């Protein structure tokens, strides 16, 4: 179990690094379809009310730091939620 957790932990770090280096590319599938069928404009254009909107932290001028810190925040939040939830599960169903 530990080895699998380490594998995916390592892959998460690698994916985060990739995210920092990659330039956002073409629109995703739904955006493409919305553009082609003419309903893309219906999407509500909200101001960035979150300091982490679009996976970039507003506090940093460097795009790399902005992306890395936002990615780390998301990863940390989901790890934390997983640990918190895992601790609340009953301990009687070991597989």
């Amino acid at each position: 179990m530990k080895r699998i957790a380490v594998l995916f932990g390592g892959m998460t770090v690698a994916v985060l690094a990739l995210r920092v280096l990659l330039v956002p590319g073409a629109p995703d599938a739904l955006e493409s379809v919305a553009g082609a069928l003419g309903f893309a404009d219906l999407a509500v254009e909200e101001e960035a009310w979150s300091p982490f909107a679009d996976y970039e932290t507003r506090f940093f001028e460097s795009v790399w730091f902005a992306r890395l810190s936002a990615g780390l925040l998301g990863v940390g939040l989901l790890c934390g939620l997983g640990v918190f939830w895992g601790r609340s599960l009953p301990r009687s169903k070991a597989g």
Partner: protein
Amino acid sequence: MHIPDGFLSTPVWAGSALAAVPAVGYCLRRTQNYFETSRTPLLGVMGAFVFAAQMIHFPLGVGTSGHLAGAALLTATLGPSAATVVMTAILVVQALVFQDGGVLALGANVLNLAVVGVWVAYLPLRGSRKAGARTRRAAAFLGAWMSLMAVALLASAELSFSKVAPPVSLFTSMLAIHALLGIAEGLITTAGLAAMERLDPAFVYAGELPGR
């Protein structure tokens, strides 16, 4: 695929949310009863991995890009109930912290990806639990592909009911792109599971106790 606010009509996003809440609640309760606690370290790790992987867009070569949805990967490693809850947590964090996917459309996104996406992926995975490695990998590929197609089908239906575009064009475009994306999803899922099986052959596909 994260539906933004504005695409869905009020009855559709409200109805989707009404359907998603009890479904996720049921999965949460089921996880409390049936989750193998030896796998609890993976709840956070897999959630974090799928979150990170969803940020990476790869080009599809037809003027569009895609990213791993991760429903099949979560299902194979955590079982469908826990996968539903973890995917819901990912979607909530993405919508509320990173403004990815609409807040009003969150119920629809949860229903599509976390409920339907996960449980459709589970069908071939469950059927292949006692099969050989090749069959299990084929089932993982099929599960990932079917999962993405089901998500695309449901999203197309929600958009059609919201009258944003002619249904035929909508279904055709969405399913065509996601059929292609599903192949990438299947390959990534299968590669991830193959790596896990190499580390621990007994691990994969046993995330939930059978028949409950």
